[in-house]
């Protein structure tokens, strides 16, 4: 059998093995490292934003040297600030979170955790990564074209996004933005196709759907969400492109003119149509980011609580319910858009409906910790951090989902605080947890846990200092996407808070250098990891770290139980591998 394996997978050269690889593990790692690089860019952009918000228009000759146009005269230009806003949002939502959670963990974990040798369509998988890389290059290109990156925010509301004459960056920058998003969509769809097919057809013996680790359920549901949501964004992007370069008028009504009085040659369209199409995609996208984070956090919580996840079934059902409901809540982004207020009422109902499965998940995570024997490893710390930030951000969502209280809070820092906690920090923490957890499986070495702990403590305090006070700023009325808040007198009470947040953000940003350094140093210098350094139960921990090509030995593993047998009474250890046959447990109990 072994010789057969070797025959089937001949030794590949470095390029075929690590660069143009079709091995799902390599592709997963490629996704993670690419997404991390994008996160560095997105993070630096946010630091520049914080600089401007904390000390509006402070002269900076140094930055003028780096960004001659953005800081012309030593002071940040308003359009440069807005292009930072757009690029930060776009990069983080798509190129970090969607990429790292579905692309990274999805590719790396799906075959390993379900007992498959690779994805269903390995070549398509590689193509998905290379398309993603191309889209990364394209979106970064937007920073360097004439006029700079688009300034309309990641939501690209029409007609601002449809009319190049409405601002710098809305020309070539915006075009590149659309191309990048279209490429990203294509990449995501190829990935999703692979994930669903692999998860349904390639599970090993005994791996019934209800024995899947929750990460797998989350990735499965996410892939379906992506399959249903991404094409709608693509359709909207195609229509927008025609508006921009084909002269059509889907999103542009008649009778518009520019600030200099030049009439716009369009007629008949409807600006709200873009918002409907965008958010029909955009809200599921929130859960495309969040669901894998939930799955990863659930599995890691259970592992280090040394206790089964509380109510596995409800976890699966609530994820499915969230996924379904995510398609009928998009209007809560549009309460004040001029949409029919009856729809506002309907969307309030559906939105608060989605709070129920989210609450179920929270109860279940807390229930998992009840009576646990918690090992405070770095992945566990981040998983608990995930739960805490998810609660904070989730609850502040209730204010925004209620149409009446949204009036005061819409487009303020309350919204910024809310979505950062719930769909940026929470997924980020889950991703950190996942990387610390599966790093040994990826590279065969452990990350440095002391540095990891420092990284966690600074990050956890940091995010709460940065994002929680934003809610209070939003209550005062601090508008989002504002280049200079000191323009408004009613914001005077929060000028100081802006500086506090900026300082906290710099510390938080700086702490991420620890992580990146730790990550790359540990690839070569970390202590060697065994098969199962965490005493976890799932299939990837039955094989060497890192697993060889084809993942499993000559025989695929046979699954005998669910993934959460931690602390099983009668068992010898406090964990029972999924492959462990029941008889073995019994003998252990003797």
């Amino acid at each position: 059998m072994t010789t057969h394996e070797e025959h089937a997978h001949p030794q590949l050269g470095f390029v075929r093995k690590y660069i143009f690889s079709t091995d799902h593990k390599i592709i997963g790692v490629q996704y993670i490292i690419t997404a991390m690089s994008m996160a560095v860019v997105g993070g630096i952009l946010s630091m520049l934003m914080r600089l401007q918000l904390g000390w509006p228009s402070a002269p900076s000759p140094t930055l003028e040297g780096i960004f001659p146009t953005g800081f012309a005269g030593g002071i940040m230009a308003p359009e440069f600030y807005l292009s930072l806003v757009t690029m930060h949002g776009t990069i983080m939502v798509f190129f970090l979170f969607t990429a790292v959670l579905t692309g990274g963990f999805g590719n790396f974990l799906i075959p390993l955790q379900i007992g498959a040798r690779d994805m269903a369509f390995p070549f398509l998988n590689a193509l998905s990564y290379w398309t993603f890389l191309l889209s990364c290059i394209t979106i970064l290109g937007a920073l360097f074209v004439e006029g700079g990156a688009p300034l309309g925010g990641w939501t690209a509301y029409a007609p601002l996004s449809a009319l190049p004459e409405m601002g710098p960056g809305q020309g070539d920058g915006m075009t590149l933005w659309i191309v990048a998003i279209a490429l990203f969509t294509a990449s995501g769809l190829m990935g999703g196709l692979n994930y669903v097919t692999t998860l349904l057809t390639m599970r090993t013996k005994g791996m019934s759907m209800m024995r899947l680790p929750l990460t797998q359920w989350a990735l499965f549901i996410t892939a379906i969400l992506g399959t249903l949501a991404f094409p709608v964004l693509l359709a909207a992007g195609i229509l927008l492109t025609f508006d921009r370069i084909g002269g059509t008028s889907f999103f542009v009504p008649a009778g518009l003119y520019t600030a200099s009085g030049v009439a716009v040659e369009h007629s008949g369209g409807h600006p709200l149509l873009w918002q409907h199409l965008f958010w029909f995609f955009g809200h599921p996208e929130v859960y495309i980011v969040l669901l894998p984070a939930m799955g990863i956090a659930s599995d890691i919580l259970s592992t280090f609580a040394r206790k089964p996840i509380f109510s596995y079934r409800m976890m699966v059902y609530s994820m499915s319910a969230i996924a379904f409901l995510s398609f009928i809540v998009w209007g809560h982004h549009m309460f004040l858009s001029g949409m029919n207020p009856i729809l506002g009422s309907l969307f309030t109902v559906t939105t608060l409906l989605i709070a129920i499965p989210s609450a179920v998940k929270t109860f279940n995570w807390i229930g998992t910790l009840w009576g646990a024997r918690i090992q405070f490893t770095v992945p566990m710390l981040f998983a608990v951090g995930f739960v805490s930030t998810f609660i904070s951000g989730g609850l502040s969502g209730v204010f925004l989902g209620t149409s009446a209280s949204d009036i005061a809070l819409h487009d303020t820092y309350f919204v910024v605080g809310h979505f950062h906690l719930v769909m940026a920090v929470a997924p980020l923490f889950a991703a950190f947890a996942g990387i610390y957890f599966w790093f040994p499986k990826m590279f065969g070495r452990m990350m440095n846990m002391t540095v990891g702990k420092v990284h966690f403590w600074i990050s956890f305090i940091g995010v709460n200092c940065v994002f929680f006070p934003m809610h209070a700023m939003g209550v005062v009325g601090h508008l989002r996407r504002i280049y200079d808040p000191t323009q408004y007198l009613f914001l005077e009470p929060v000028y100081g808070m802006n500086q506090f947040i900026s300082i906290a953000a710099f510390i938080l940003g700086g702490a991420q250098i620890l992580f990146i350094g730790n990550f790359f140093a540990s690839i070569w210098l970390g202590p060697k990891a065994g098969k199962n350094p965490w005493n976890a139960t799932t299939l990837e921990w039955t094989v060497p770290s890192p697993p060889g090509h084809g993942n499993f030995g000559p025989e695929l593993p046979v699954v005998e139980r669910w993934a959460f047998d931690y602390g099983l009474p009668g068992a010898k250890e406090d964990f029972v591998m999924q492959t462990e046959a029941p008889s073995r447990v019994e003998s252990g109990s003797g």
Partner: protein
Amino acid sequence: MANGVGTGKVTVPGVVLGGLLAIFVVISTWLFITDRYWFTELSSEHGASLDGVFIAVLIVTGIAFVATQGLLAYFVTRYGANGDEKASYWHDNPKAEMILIGGTALTLTILVFYGQLVWYDIYFTDPPEDSMVVEVTGQQFQWVFRYPGIDGEFGERNISLVSPTNFIGLDRNGAGADDIVALGQMHAVLNQPVTVLLRSTDVIHNFHVPHLRVKQDAVPGLTIENHFVATIAGEYEIACAELCGANHYRMKAALTIDETEAEFDQWMEEQLPFQ
């Protein structure tokens, strides 16, 4: 081998994490129960009910926040690993879950009803017959206010008449002859209903008067109606709350609530020479 018999241990990282969570809960609660960071002073009739919804949601989510973060803090403090002691092996409790789901659903239902009653009041109530109508046009990056003048009727707007002095292309023939147009300045009278007709000539803007709890998009191609009654005289800031381009941050205007009709009329007269 202890089969889960035991109590777990209070560990150092557990205490630190639980303590941090506790501190975080205390500071967060403080942030929201002191009035240090609160809404701008309320100056409109409908605003009170909106603030009321906020407070109701704040109480409900506040309780949930303290309870869940508190439990999280307690469990991480209380249930640290203790040697090779096992955790308790249970993973289902349908009854407890049903109670929690039911409780959540019930609370949310009440919130929805309360919130929607207020929403309904604001969006499904027509402005009073005698309310003053002001057309508000957002354009990069200024607010243009138009009053119908003595005839009470707005004149036609024509894109071909747009010029550096005629921002909205007002046709001065016909009903537009007596229209009063003011750039960046709006006046209204204390305790008198005002209806604003929101329009835009380029991209989406948002007419936002924080003190009056007014916030509504101005969408090109649509005319969106919004109405309010100011209850405190004074000068208020009007902001654009929807990203509209490079100088979005300084697309602002001033709203003056005049104490008496006479003051308002005087302002109107002052505007005439500019027309």
